[in-house]
């Protein structure tokens, strides 16, 4: 253990002495920085005037001395911990004080040319040095405490807390502070009247001709969407598990498609079908002689689009739950003379309660954060997500209003979390007992089956129609007007010149950037998400609840807010990331992490804890246990986390719009630009290619992770 500390101290010292401390304009592997005054190492900078960098080198040196000369292990660990924390604190402090333009405060302390010249953001040297000190601190904690901590566990906690702190709290604080901003300062008293204004919470639509506030609109839409998707998802799940419906495979595909569809596409297809000039509208109007209306613009259109988009999520949550209801409980109910309806009503349905609550919560939050559908279809029905966006980019840019609306949105999502916790209470819903169940799930009674078919099948049919339209739209000249066949959209987007081997299509750049970034972000997301899940399920530590909550936070904040807050936070020293691909990767990792966490928690809860304990009592440390026992058994969860984060990185829009740069443009941002420009054909052709790409990637992932999983699942089953 002493060695671990020494190794990390050496790494930290190396980072200080041999790597450029600050961000460089050249690559890390370009040796120019050795001679370049601006990008010199921490050691060199500290000696040539930037004395405030010295603690970064002194801290490891002092800690090394402590390792060598202090014998008592606990005492040694405590002193080392203090030194490491002090070092980290001083590094952070100097970074916050001295920015590009020189010192922000304490000018009397930081005098001289070097200080006034300022410094760019931290680079490789600073990063490595800080990371090393962090690990030195965590390893020391594990040695100085009551033996609670295994170094690996404490280090993982430390790393995740640091990452969440830097990449979730730090930027979010930047924007939330704006809510209290008034001309020339900050005010708490101004905040409350603005927050509780009728524009946000007004109930005018209930009592008169005026409309309701945006938060009320969002709330209403969210509740409706949550309820609707849960109902539809349940119908699908029941059809899958409790009926002998024939086209289950086709249904399965239909339930995956909306997840991998880039935003806007569903909204556009709905307009072309149900808009005033839409195909269906024309047909119905001709048939019945009805007036063609614009009903699809506004609440109903958005609601419709959200049902199409988010039902699959509810389905994925509920299918596991519906399958998980132990057949023996249903059989028990039936032997007690309950009929199939009573069994469903009084046994199965209540047992599905956690699943229903989860599905509703996800639908609700997705609806609140949804940006694409309200933008295309919302018309006069304002919701928080679009309103926040236009408060930032609209003709009257008002970041304070955006921040206030963001707080309103956070209030809604957090209340939903609370409500769910309260509703579920402390009842036990465990239905998987570990004993092999050989019974069969009760099939549905005819009335219920009909009801399920009646709700789910029209949805499926509509999805099918929407996707046929999308494929159709990418192959016709002018969707809606000129339906002659053409490949022009594909050629324009993805054309290439065979003779010269050059890619001439306009979409190639963003396509490759998107794939690269998604491919880097997905494994990182899975790693961070599953490590967090491991800590939450398997480890006990102080502040675990707060830790869990903070990891869920980024999921509840709308993408637009995250996007803008990232620019505000990471455009300046100490951490300068704007314009790089890193910022895109990071935003995806921390936005999608909660899903990895949830999936990991679910999967890990199914692994008997005695497996870890066996490994540990056999002398393996936590790291070896995770690597050799837990990871190999978590195939499905890893697959899910990888797939989800990959798909999300490709399809998310709102967070990305602000973060894309000339060098790193993303597919969705490109598509949005085309949609704004009215080039639906190109946008849809691009979307179709993305959908195919994602399907291929999912299949590939399943081949890589999935086949191993199957073999293992068989073994696991027989073990029991």
């Amino acid at each position: 253990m002493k060695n671990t500390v020494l190794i990390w101290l050496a790494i930290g010292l190396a980072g200080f002495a041999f790597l450029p401390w600050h961000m460089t304009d050249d690559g890390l592997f370009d040796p120019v920085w050795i001679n370049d005054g601006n990008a010199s190492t921490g050691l060199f900078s500290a000696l040539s005037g930037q004395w405030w960098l010295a603690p970064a080198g002194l801290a490891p040196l002092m800690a090394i001395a402590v390792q060598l000369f202090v014998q008592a292990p606990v005492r040694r660990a405590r002193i080392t911990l203090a030194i490491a924390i002090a070092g980290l604190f001083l590094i952070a402090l100097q970074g916050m004080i001295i920015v590009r333009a020189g010192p922000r405060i304490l000018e009397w302390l930081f005098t001289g040319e070097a200080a006034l010249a300022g410094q760019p953001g931290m680079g490789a040297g600073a990063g490595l040095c800080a990371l090393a000190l962090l690990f030195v601190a965590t390893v020391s904690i594990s040695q100085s405490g009551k033996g609670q901590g295994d170094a690996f566990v404490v280090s993982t906690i430390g790393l995740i807390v640091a990452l969440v702190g830097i990449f979730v709290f730090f930027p979010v604080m930047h924007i939330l502070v704006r809510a209290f901003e008034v001309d020339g300062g900050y005010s708490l008293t101004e905040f409350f009247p603005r927050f509780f204004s009728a524009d946000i919470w007004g109930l005018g639509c209930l009592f008169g001709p005026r409309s309701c506030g945006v938060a009320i609109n969002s709330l209403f839409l969210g509740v409706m969407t949550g309820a609707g998707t849960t109902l539809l998802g349940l119908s699908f799940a029941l059809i899958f598990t409790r009926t002998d419906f024939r086209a289950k495979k086709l249904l399965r595909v239909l339930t995956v498609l909306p997840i991998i569809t880039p935003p806007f596409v569903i909204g556009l297809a709905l307009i072309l079908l149900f808009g005033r000039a839409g195909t269906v509208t024309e047909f119905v109007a001709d048939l019945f002689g009805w007036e063609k209306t614009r009903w699809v613009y506004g609440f109903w259109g958005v609601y419709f689009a959200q049902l199409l988009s988010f039902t699959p999520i509810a389905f994925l949550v509920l299918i596991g739950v519906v399958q998980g209801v132990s057949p023996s409980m249903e059989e028990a109910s039936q032997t007690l003379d309950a009929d199939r309806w009573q069994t469903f009503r009084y046994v199965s349905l209540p047992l599905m309660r956690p699943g229903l609550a989860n599905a509703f919560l996800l639908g609700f939050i997705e609806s609140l954060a949804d940006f694409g559908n309200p933008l295309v279809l919302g018309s006069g029905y304002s919701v928080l997500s679009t309103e926040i966006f236009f408060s930032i980019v609209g003709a009257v840019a008002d970041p304070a209003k955006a921040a206030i609306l963001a707080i309103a949105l956070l209030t809604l999502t957090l209340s939903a979390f609370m409500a769910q916790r309260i509703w579920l209470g402390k009842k036990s819903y465990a239905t998987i007992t570990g004993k092999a169940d050989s019974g069969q799930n009760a099939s549905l009674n005819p009335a219920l089956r009909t009801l399920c078919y009646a709700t789910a099948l029209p949805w499926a049919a509509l999805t099918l129609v929407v996707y046929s339209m999308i494929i159709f739209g990418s192959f016709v000249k002018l969707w809606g007007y000129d339906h002659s066949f053409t490949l022009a959209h594909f050629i324009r987007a993805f054309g290439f010149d065979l003779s010269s081997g050059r890619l001439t299509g306009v979409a190639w750049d963003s396509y490759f950037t998107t794939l690269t970034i998604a491919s880097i972000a997905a494994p990182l997301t899975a790693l961070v998400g599953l490590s967090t899940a491991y800590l939450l399920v398997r480890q006990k530590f102080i502040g675990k609840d707060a830790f869990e909550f903070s990891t869920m936070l980024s999921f509840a904040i709308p993408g637009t807010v995250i996007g803008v807050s990232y620019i505000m936070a990471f455009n300046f020293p100490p951490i300068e990331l704007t314009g790089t691909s890193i910022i895109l990767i990071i935003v995806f990792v921390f936005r999608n992490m909660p899903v990895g966490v949830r999936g990991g928690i679910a999967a890990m809860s199914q692994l008997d804890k005695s497996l870890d304990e066996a490994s540990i009592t056999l002398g393996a440390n936590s790291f070896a246990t995770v690597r050799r026992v837990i990871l190999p058994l978590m195939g499905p969860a890893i697959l899910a986390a990888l797939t989800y984060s990959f798909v999300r990185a490709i399809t998310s829009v709102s967070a990305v719009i602000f973060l894309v740069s000339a060098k790193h443009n993303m597919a969705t941002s490109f598509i949005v630009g085309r949609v704004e420009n009215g080039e639906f054909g190109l946008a849809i052709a691009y979307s179709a290619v993305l959908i195919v790409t994602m399907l291929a990637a999912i299949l590939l992932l399943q081949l890589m992770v999935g086949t191993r999983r199957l073999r293992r699942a068989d073994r696991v089953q027989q073990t029991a």
Partner: protein
Amino acid sequence: MKRLGMISVATLALSASGVLADELSVVCSAEQDWCDLMVSAFEAEHPDTDVLMVRKSTGETLAQVRAEAGNPKIDVWWGGTGDPHLIAAEEGLTQASGVDTSELLGWAQNMADISNGKAIGIYAGALGIAYNADILSEKSIEPPQCWADLEDPRFEGEIQVANPNSSGTAYTELATFVQLFGEDEAMVKLAAVGKNVNSYTKSGSAPSKAAARGETGVSIGFMHDMVKLAAQGFPLKIVAPCEGTGYEVGAVSVIEGARNPEAAKAWVAFALRADVQSRAPEVGSFQVPSNSNAKVAPESPDLASIKLIDYDFATYGSSDTRGRLLARWDAEVGDPNPQK
């Protein structure tokens, strides 16, 4: 733990790659195709400069330029309606490029004068009315000729226009009404038109697109957008209102603190050249070019035949006027959260 370390090192290695000296970072707020054309044309003339271009709307760009103030990652902002360019100039977010503007038309020079040379006009587009010929003939509605026609009940539920709170296009319309009719009268007229409006959209170009597809009968917006839609084959007819109309001036600005100011200035000079501006119609952009020697596409709205008002960019671009007019619009014309 070693593994975690490796990943972090890899991450840092990635982060260390930055911007090369001969790279020019351009944000383009015009149509994507025009942006692409400009980049390839510029790179052809300046083979040593690698142009990195991203398309963002003016609102997004202004938000980003503000957020990045002091340490910008953008060198040049090209295209997009002039107001945000003027705001950026007023807030000191852009710098004068010192490029020669003598060949430019009056309105373009005017913009440079207002902004002390920080924003220079590159194209103009007049505000107009578009209608879907199919819809109006089907419903036997007489097409509009003037702004005043839009107040007529025959257009009930047929007009679509953007919300000036979110759209620069709609703000131009609001300011045009004020300059045509006076502030009080303008609000009365806008409210009267508002009775026929089916939706105040967020985006300024959305109403014309909706009119093109037949989702609404009549739209208010910039004529060059309408021309483009009509050229694509939509049954869209364009009207220059009889009372006269306002216009926007698209601009180009160099960002204050640009990392590559030399290339940025070269870009501005390039963008103002007659031969470069003449190429816009190749990609279906029908704005009127600012260089007096540039060729105007036959499809472009002929500014000479349109009765243009003497749009006062200095007054109506200022934050004070803007705030006052929008507050009045909210109170007297539009429900801040309309729901119909």
